[in-house]
């Protein structure tokens, strides 16, 4: 899995007039072994490249390869049209202890924009490289970077004796995959806890749906809902104490409930005989947005998190489902039927205008990055599901090489907490 992202990286940049030319100079290495533990410059370079906003200079074109800012000759870079240069070093300080140092320079104003030294181990070096890329990205764009975040998704692999479903967590670039749960019965609807430490999901083990919450580090999981009929569509409240879930009951009428994770008490929010499902909290905790076909086809509604009368939110088109709010609360992503194709659309909640972001036939499961600036979703390629990301303005779209088999239901983690 180590080179998954590099092996099949497809960048499809549309509409960005000119990605910013930058240079990530290969990092220096001061240690007791001949080879560096990780090519940090390449990790940073790929992060910036994948964002679609930067055009990293080829190493062959570099006129100098300094590893410290004091050796930087700005003229060598401005002559290439490079607007920003990153230099750095990895210095070994113990058996498994290193210092990762990097500096970012503006070549036209000839000054340092940011510089850090980070103590790392072999195990944390890749994450530290992503964090460095986050700081560089934020300095250059004003947008918080998400290179240090993770993605969870479900895969289905055909096996001789049936299908194997896996719940997988990887870095946002598709590297560093870890299988969290495996089952011969379907796994669905993963959802991150606000602290990124747990995933809620639906499992059909025993040919019956139930909802689990699993702690990633320990692997411990506990069943939080196993009522008769549908137990589905979990999503954490902003404070992490509750889940909004769908319960169908013995008579199979899916409605929205709020489940207190500790007490296991449920509170019913909707009572309509239509399908009400796919609940999600607004970031301020005030509303729950959900899908309902009470008016015929599925549309997005919202209801106060304390209950009340639902208010219809979407009116454009015959099919709008699976709402997800941007973490800044300004936009609503959904699956939208666009002239017979199921595509990802984003609605500005104030203006209520809809922008279709994807181009597939059967796109699904949109999930915002924690900086609200892009989304990840599943699309089809040759019959299998693959993951794509798209900027929230629709201008930068790319495939993410990750997972094996049919990959679906990606969910972007919150920002890591330190």
């Amino acid at each position, binding site marked *: 899995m180590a080179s998954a992202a590099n092996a099949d990286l497809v960048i499809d940049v549309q509409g960005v007039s000119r990605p910013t030319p930058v240079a990530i100079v290969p990092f220096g290495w001061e240690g007791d072994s001949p080879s560096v533990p990780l090519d940090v410059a390449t990790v940073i370079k790929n992060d910036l490249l994948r964002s679609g906003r930067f055009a990293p200079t080829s190493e062959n074109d570099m006129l100098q390869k300094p590893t410290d800012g004091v050796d930087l000759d700005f003229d060598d870079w401005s002559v290439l049209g490079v607007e920003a240069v990153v230099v750095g070093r990895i210095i070994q300080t113990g058996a498994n202890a290193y210092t990762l140092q990097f500096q970012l320079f503006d070549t036209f104003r000839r000054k340092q924009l940011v510089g850090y030294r980070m103590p790392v181990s072999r195990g944390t070096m890749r994450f530290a490289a992503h964090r460095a890329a986050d700081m560089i990205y934020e300095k250059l764009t004003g947008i918080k970077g998400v290179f240090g975040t993770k993605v969870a998704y479900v895969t289905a692999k055909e096996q001789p004796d049936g299908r194997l479903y896996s719940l997988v967590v990887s870095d946002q670039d598709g590297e560093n995959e870890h299988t969290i749960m495996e089952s011969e019965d379907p796994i669905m609807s993963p959802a991150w806890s606000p602290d990124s430490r747990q995933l809620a999901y639906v499992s059909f083990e025993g040919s019956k749906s139930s909802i689990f919450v699993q702690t990633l580090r320990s692997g411990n999981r506990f069943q939080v809902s196993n009522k008769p009929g549908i137990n589905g569509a979990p999503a954490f409240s902003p404070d992490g104490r509750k889940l909004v879930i769908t319960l169908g009951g013995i008579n*199979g009428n*899916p409605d929205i409930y709020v489940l207190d994770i500790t007490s296991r008490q449920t509170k019913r929010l909707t009572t309509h005989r239509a399908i009400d499902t796919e609940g999600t909290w607004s970031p301020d905790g005030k509303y729950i947005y959900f*899908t309902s076909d009470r008016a015929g086809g599925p549309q997005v509604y919202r209801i106060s998190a304390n209950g009340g009368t639902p208010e219809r939110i979407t009116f454009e088109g015959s*099919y709008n489902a699976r709402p997800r709010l941007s973490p800044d609360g300004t936009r609503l992503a959904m699956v939208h039927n666009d002239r017979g194709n*199921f595509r990802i659309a984003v609605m500005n909640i104030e203006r209520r205008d809809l922008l279709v972001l994807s181009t597939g*036939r059967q796109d699904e499961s949109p999930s915002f990055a924690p900086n609200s600036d892009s989304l990840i979703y599943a699309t089809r390629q040759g019959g299998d599901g693959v993951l794509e990301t798209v900027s929230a303005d629709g201008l930068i779209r790319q495939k993410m090489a990750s997972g094996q088999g049919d990959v679906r239901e990606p969910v972007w983690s919150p920002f890591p907490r330190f």
Partner: protein
Amino acid sequence: MFYYKIFAVAVLSALLAGCPATPVPDPEPVDTTYGGEVGAGADTVDTAGTDVKTMRGGEFIEETAESLGTIIYFEFDSSQVRAEDQDLVAGHAIALNEKPGANVRLEGHADERGSREYNIGLGERRAQAVRQMLMIQGVSASQIQTVSFGEERPESRGSSESDYAENRRVVIKYTN
């Protein structure tokens, strides 16, 4: 009871015309006296035939499922059991009334279009339509369990209209 067995065969022959692809055993001779008794309830039982009585539970269930068929297909965006499948459901209702110890799980499915959890709702709606039909014909609620797999367990993995039609279904599974 013999009555139920011949009923099952009668339904089967009615189904044969519509389902050429389904491999089925040769129909046995049928006493058509009972042909119009669909859904008539379990109080009129012909005890003349005793061959079924000697069968163990498992064989009874296998025979019922095999001879009636266990899959009900649905139109796009519909949970209406089609007229041609109503006899199939009625046959299972009679079988379940006959064997109060037998239980079924109705597994509802949707095609892949649209969002996954909403499709769980659509599959459940289909399973519930079949459940209601069984209950109207006297089957006890305690004999029926429903589960919706939405689009998660497609019968056909393609993305054509005919694949979708195969995937919009309820499967009747005897669980004991």
